[in-house]
């Protein structure tokens, strides 16, 4: 029996040890709890909030783009989409729903298949977009039948829309989905469906138009479903940009350029407002928004007439005879000739072994500066170019805006080319030949200019010699303020008024004189007359053999070998306000294709009073009298 007492004593001892052990372990739990809930509590609170709270970016509406009179050119359109969410909906029901939906709106054949596939892949609460850009009829049909379509809803997004399609495409550019390499610090760019400017104003002023993203703080559960919104910070809408473009003039020019490949720039000669800038053929910027098919893209890229290129700023052409004003001014300024100096044109001049031909086979006879420009006598300009030398011609050309980017608010502007002796040594590696000076004297050879540069040259000629620069932005309007673009002071280019007048008078004669090359294209309405200069620039070399049997007519040549047709003009004659540059690729004779176009455009611009309300430019430097 006492053995049982021993057993009991042993039990009691060991039970005490056990009880102590349990208490110890319980204290360990308390200690751990204290560590987690007191010592580390702040850290875990942050982690719990990280779990619970998601930030969602809110895309701001993109700023509109309007013309100088406030007409919309780029807007945001409501994009009605039909979306399908299948939370708590059975797969068989989805199939039935899709069938019912297909009966109401046209869905692509693969849609059902695609939805069922995506359904398995996605989380159930993320809706699938079935079709975008629904029209009103389709929206109405779906809304009416909503009870029969479980899981189907209409969602409203925003899509960039260009109401005038191809008419302003090159100026405005277009938007498209962000590509990987464009992603920067702005988290907006990572939003699915976000669009970014890819060319034109849309690209050049993307940040202004984009605005700032807002953010919404939402509470989500473990699978990411939004439970409620905790806080919302609205973003800032993109600013509205008003362009200097006159939409109606732009459309008129577009119509006029139809079926041609080329470019037109219309500018206010005094303040540099670009009133119209058209490159033809064009493209539909709306197509990029929804995603262009590979085939359409290939067509655009491989088209020899380069519809995606803005030829007004990126097309570089030999200016041909439109360059003669530059040579004439250089000669006058440097005293190589006076307005009275005369030369004899026999149809060609010889320089060493080479012979340089005038466009008029049997010559112009005695030619002075006015007649040289009016009748576009090549021999006259060969002669003064020879006397000037290429570097002097180039220096004058630069004053008038050639050979440099003019800093327009568009991506892709080219600088053209004004050759000099040192340039040739560097770029070509051989020394300058005098014959090349003669060729440059009539705007051929190495000389290249963009249509924009031609317009700027004309403006500087007729505005009294001020270095006007072209621009497209008129004002930028945010929610709170409108800021008008402040133009830099325009300084004089330092050319004597009388020389400018001699040249512009000659240009007036080109159109209105009895022997002018563009006489057929004169504006007959009094007070609206224009002055200008034709240009026909060769894109092929005419061999001696061909010249002997007779130069082939443009009509006989394949399109890509025909001459470029050019015209630069201004109007009205007495107080020039509008300047125009027209370049028609392979359009043949300047007087036949480009000149009539310029006439219609300048007439329209004046009738429309397109430059109103005019902003007087700030001028500095010497100048005889205000224009």
């Amino acid at each position, binding site marked *: 029996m006492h*053995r*049982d007492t*021993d*057993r*009991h004593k*042993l*039990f*009691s001892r*060991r*039970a005490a040890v*056990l*009880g102590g052990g*349990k*208490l110890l*372990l*319980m204290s*360990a*739990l*308390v200690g*751990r*709890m*204290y560590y*987690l*809930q*007191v010592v*580390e*509590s702040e*850290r*875990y*609170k942050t*982690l*719990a*909030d990280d*779990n*619970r709270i998601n930030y969602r970016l809110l895309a701001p509406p993109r700023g509109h783009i309007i013309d100088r009179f406030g007409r919309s050119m780029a807007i945001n359109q409501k994009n009605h989409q039909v979306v399908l969410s299948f939370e708590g909906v059975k797969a068989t029901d989805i199939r039935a729903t899709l069938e019912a939906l297909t009966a109401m709106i046209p869905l692509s054949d693969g849609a059902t298949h695609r939805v069922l596939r995506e359904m398995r892949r996605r989380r159930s609460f993320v809706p699938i977009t079935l079709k975008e850009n629904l029209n009103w009829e389709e929206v109405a049909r779906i809304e009416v039948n909503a009870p029969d379509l479980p899981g189907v809803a209409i969602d409203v997004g925003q899509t960039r829309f260009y109401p005038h399609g191809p008419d302003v495409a090159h100026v405005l550019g277009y938007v498209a989905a962000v590509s990987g390499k464009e992603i920067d610090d702005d988290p907006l760019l990572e939003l699915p469906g976000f669009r970014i400017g890819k060319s034109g104003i849309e690209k050049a002023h993307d940040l202004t138009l984009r605005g700032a993203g807002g953010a919404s703080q939402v*509470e*989500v*559960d*473990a*699978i990411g479903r939004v*439970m409620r919104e905790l806080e919302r910070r609205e973003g800032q809408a993109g600013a509205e940009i008003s362009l200097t473009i006159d939409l109606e003039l732009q459309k008129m020019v577009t119509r006029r350029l139809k079926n041609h490949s080329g470019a037109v720039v219309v500018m206010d000669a005094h303040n540099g407002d670009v009133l119209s800038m058209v490159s033809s053929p064009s493209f539909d910027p709306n197509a990029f928004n929804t995603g262009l098919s590979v085939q359409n893209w290939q067509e655009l890229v491989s088209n020899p007439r380069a519809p995606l290129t803005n030829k007004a700023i990126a097309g570089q052409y030999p200016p041909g005879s439109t360059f003669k004003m530059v040579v004439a001014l250089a000669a006058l300024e440097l005293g190589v000739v006076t307005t009275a100096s005369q030369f004899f044109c026999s149809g060609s001049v010889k320089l060493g072994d080479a012979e340089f031909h005038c466009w008029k086979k049997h010559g112009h006879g005695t030619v002075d500066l006015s007649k040289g420009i009016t009748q576009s006598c090549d021999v006259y300009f060969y002669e003064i170019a020879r006397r000037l030398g290429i570097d002097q011609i180039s220096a004058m050309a630069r004053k008038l805006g050639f050979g440099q980017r003019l800093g327009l608010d568009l991506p892709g502007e080219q600088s053209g080319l004004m050759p000099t002796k040192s340039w040739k040594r560097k770029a070509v590696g051989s020394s300058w030949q005098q014959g090349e000076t003669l060729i440059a004297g009539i705007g051929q050879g190495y000389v290249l200019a963009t249509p924009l540069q031609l317009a700027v040259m004309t403006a500087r000629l007729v505005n009294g010699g001020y270095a006007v620069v072209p621009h497209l932005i008129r004002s930028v309007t945010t929610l709170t303020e409108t800021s008008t673009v402040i133009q830099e002071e325009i300084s004089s280019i330092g050319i004597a008024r009388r020389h400018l007048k001699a040249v512009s008078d000659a240009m007036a004669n080109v159109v209105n004189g009895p022997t002018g090359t563009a006489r057929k294209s004169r504006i007959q309405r009094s007070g609206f007359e224009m002055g200008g200069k034709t240009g026909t620039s060769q894109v092929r070399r005419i061999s001696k053999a061909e010249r002997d049997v007779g130069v082939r007519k443009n009509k006989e040549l394949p399109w890509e070998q025909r001459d470029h047709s050019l015209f630069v003009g201004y109007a009205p004659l007495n107080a020039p306000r509008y300047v125009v540059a027209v370049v028609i690729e392979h359009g043949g004779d300047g007087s036949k294709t480009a000149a009539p176009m310029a006439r219609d455009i300048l007439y329209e611009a004046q009738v429309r009073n397109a430059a109103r309300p005019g902003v007087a430019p700030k001028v500095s430097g010497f100048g005889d009298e205000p224009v």
Partner: protein
Amino acid sequence: MDGLNRPDLSLRQKLLEMNWIFVLLVCMTASVGFAMLYSAANGSVYPWVSRQMLRFGAGFLVMIVVALTDIRLWLRYAYVLFAAILLLLVIVEFKGEMGMGAQRWIPLGFIRLQPSEFMKIALVIALARYFHGCSIDDVGRIHYLIPPLLMVAVPSALVLRQPDLGTALMLVFASTIVFFLAGVRLWKFVVIFICGLASLPFGWIYYLRPYQKARVMTFLNPESDPLGRGWNIIQSKIALGSGGVFGKGFMNGSQAHLNFLPEKQTDFIFTMLAEEFGLVGGLALLTLYTILLGYGFVISYRSHSQFGRLMGMGVTVTFFLYVFINIAMVMGLIPVVGVPLPLISFGGSHMIALLWGFGLLLGVFVHRNILIGRRGAHEEH
């Protein structure tokens, strides 16, 4: 022997002798569970609270009936009971329903019976009976230890095969404590422990399932796989820690209610409680548990029979293991082994098994003054 069935106390006496405070504490703890399950269901008695109440009701009846049953009856039928539940374990091993990746259940109408939960109690009774019959000299003889070791090894191996590491560990731990209290010499534990340690690599390679290995690895470094296996424990720690001292308030636990916390109605219910009621709530529950454990300890300690002492202590230890393993697990102190929080986690079998155990404990209390001879007859004394 004939005295075994003769009631010494009338039903009225037994009811008067009953430790009603303990019963009250049990009900309080279960009520905490109801509240938490109500919160887990976002403020609804469905689907959990209603069923849990039903199960508690059934378990409560079992507890009272067991408490009033003469403990000599349990002594007498200890082996029969053990054999019967072992049989059930064998049945689930071969015919049981698949659930949670382990064969654990026998469908039985309103609850699915988990024999392994009942084995925890049955094994304690059987061991208590065995050691009750051993003198202190017998316990010292090695061949006397072979039958009880088999009694532990067979069900543990079956449970481990299911596979249910948590329950197997509990069976082994609780049995070890009964062996210890019965007076088995300490050096024997040391030998067994060293043998066990030596066989660990063997067990790791041949016995643990891949998921069990993964759990251990996850415990050692939860951040190694934060979205996979480490997810549960990381989220549980975040929930606990973010609860702070006073908690986020009833039904306001973001981790629990936004489903970051997994299995919040079962194994991780303590986490939800500590998230919503903070350190204060967690300590309150721990205090409640400690008081219950204290009662269990004192009741067992004061029993006048070795059977009552060992059985009471065995039940108390089993209860302690539930509490400690579950809470240590959700706080990241030990690997995730799938042990419910007693009286609170949603689940039927563990609730009824535990209340059966508490019934035995109460029975020990009610019959504390009954002396039982080593062969089962108190007249010997």
